């Protein structure tokens, strides 16, 4: 069967890409199957779990609900783009310190929701944090450690200076 293809140009984690891809694949398929970036997860595939959350032009979106073609011309960030060449990003470090990661399946998505939140609102209150991660299901942690980790990350600023431990 002939597959209709299109060319998309976008930046992902700082790197420019120009790719010919099937016209109707999702952004999630593009990221996982074509670019082989496996940090972005597929849970439900229909926008309900948030495991596939990525940041597009500064906003958190569900990669499973977006066509890859819609990324054309956009700036995309996945969890792979969060960490520096070595070590962890301050948000990631806060999640580790707070034991906010158990099985870890939800973690990349929550990190991306957090990244988008802190880019928009560097000092969120608890309700803003809850709103930002309400679309990310976690079956393990019970959320409290996640909310605490986001608070810590925000308190340290995105550069991750003094983080207070409150447990």
């Amino acid at each position, binding site marked *: 069967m002939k597959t209709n293809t299109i060319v998309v140009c976008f930046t992902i984690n700082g790197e420019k890409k120009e790719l010919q891809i099937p016209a109707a694949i999702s952004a999630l398929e593009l990221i996982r199957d074509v670019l082989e970036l496996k940090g972005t997860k597929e849970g439900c595939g229909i*926008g*309900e779990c948030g495991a596939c959350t990525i940041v597009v032009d500064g*906003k*958190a979106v569900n990669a499973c609900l977006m*066509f890859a073609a819609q990324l054309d011309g956009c700036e995309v960030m996945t969890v792979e783009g969060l960490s520096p060449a070595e070590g962890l990003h301050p948000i990631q470090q806060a999640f580790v310190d707070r034991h906010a990661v158990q099985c870890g399946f939800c973690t990349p998505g929550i990190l991306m929701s957090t990244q*988008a939140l802190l880019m928009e609102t560097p000092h969120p209150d608890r309700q803003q944090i809850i709103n930002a991660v309400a*679309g990310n299901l976690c079956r393990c942690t019970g959320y409290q450690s996640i909310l605490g980790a986001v608070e810590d990350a925000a308190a340290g600023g995105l550069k991750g200076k003094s983080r207070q431990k409150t447990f």
Partner: protein
Amino acid sequence: MVDMDYIRPQDLAGALDFLAAHGPDTTLLAGGTDVMVDLRAGKLHSRYLLDISRLSEFRKIEACNGELTVGAGVTIAEIYASKTIARHAPALQKAAAAFASRPVRNVATIGGNVAHCSPCGDTIPPLLIHDARAVVVNPQGRRLVDVEQMADGPYHCTLRPDEIITGFILKVKPDEVEFVDFQKIGRRKALAIARISMAVMAQQQPDKSIGFIRFALGSCTPTPHRFRQIEEFLLGKVPDENLVWQAGRMLADDMLAITGRRPSALYKEPAIQGLFVRMMVALI
């Protein structure tokens, strides 16, 4: 793999040219939050996806001469953040606050929400209380469609395949109206599709009697509706507990008259009445 072509027209004229030639084989794509889910469920069989999400004609929010225009491509997150909408159509803003999750709100559009014609579309009851009309364009011209007439059944849109909604025209909230609310009941708090939703705005005279009221119900009937009988019943009366319960009873009866007694009525009948009373109690 689904085999579809993806087309992104440069402007509205380009989109209409394409629809003139391929309308019946085309699905319009805005935020994609319904299109993707339908595609995955095997419910979509068109040959072309026409991406209208970047057309600048679709993105304005503007109040002028007692009318508020909201472009079809305005996202739910943009509705939530808009001061103009908060001032002139606060129920719409409340609906945006309770809508899905942040990542969905960031891309889902009001045009897609209305065009998808789900009985549970959260933006529809707020649009109805503002007598909203959709601005619809087609290769021949332009027409206005009452949002209440957009669907003739669940998920069934009355627009032709060569038509696009460019925006909505709402009557702004009258200045003297102080009471505005949108309420929904879902299975859970976040990411819940409404099982019952209601939008209301009302104004009380100095003697407390109701001088102006608009009320719409979503999710309970095949398409969301204004309930004008309830509005007429309450107009001119001074609300007390008894009157509000009576109106809630009427609402549940009117809903049952439309849907018949389905199994879900056992839950919905008292829940509608309860939610209505909880919302209207503010007027007592």
